[in-house]
């Protein structure tokens, strides 16, 4: 059972200070991934914890000042308090990154490797193609298609001039 303390001031990692007892055998190690995490997301505007967990002395005194009237804070102090709680503003979150270059480069690289593998396969793995791919056979196939008037309106046989036995100009 977890002995949790009430979350203070926009949620510090209070759970890390609690202790998990396992039936008298000892204390279970709290894994970092089980604790609340900070992330910048548009759809989750207020993350579970503050960005800066370990405050410097200056930041501690600023937090004390925050307890008083906010009108007494200067603009720089307000921004400093914001930056303690959050990593990126919404505007910064939405900025374009250069990640697409890495993505495109990676994709092209992998496609290239795949191409090499395919070429090797063609040479060393596949057997010969069936005899129906011979040029003579293909010519006979085409002649049969024209004889039976395949797609005579808009397609193959439409382009064949049957009187002169040649393709229409």
């Amino acid at each position: 059972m977890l002995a949790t303390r009430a979350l203070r001031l926009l949620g510090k990692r209070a759970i890390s200070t609690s202790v998990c007892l396992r039936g008298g055998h000892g204390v279970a190690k709290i894994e970092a991934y089980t604790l609340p995490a900070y992330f910048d997301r548009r759809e989750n505007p207020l993350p579970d914890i503050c960005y800066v967990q370990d405050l410097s002395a200056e930041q501690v005194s600023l937090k004390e000042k925050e307890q008083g009237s906010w009108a007494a804070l200067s603009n720089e102090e307000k921004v400093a308090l914001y930056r303690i709680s959050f990593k990126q503003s919404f505007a910064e979150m939405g900025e374009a990154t250069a990640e697409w270059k890495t993505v495109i480069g990676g994709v092209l690289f992998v496609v290239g490797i795949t191409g090499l593998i395919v070429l090797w396969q063609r040479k060393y793995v596949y057997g010969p193609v069936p005899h129906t791919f011979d040029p003579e056979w293909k010519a006979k196939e085409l002649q049969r298609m024209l004889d039976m008037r395949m797609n005579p309106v808009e397609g193959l046989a439409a382009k064949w001039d049957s009187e002169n036995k040649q393709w229409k100009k």
Partner: protein
Amino acid sequence: MSLQKPLMRGLLAKRLRFHVPIAFALSMLAAVGWKYGVTEPRKQAYADFYKHYDATKEFTSMREAGVFESVRPTGE
């Protein structure tokens, strides 16, 4: 600092008011383009094909080529 308060409401309506007329116009353009670029020429091609179509002549030439199984070419 004192930023202006950002727009809080009506965001979807604003987006729709801009994008829906464009989408409608492009769809209509696509439909009209398809009709007069594809379907009308196709109908004309079929009409032209069947205007001077001699079924018997076509059948005879196909028969002589030997593509049928029910009738063999004349002479066999």
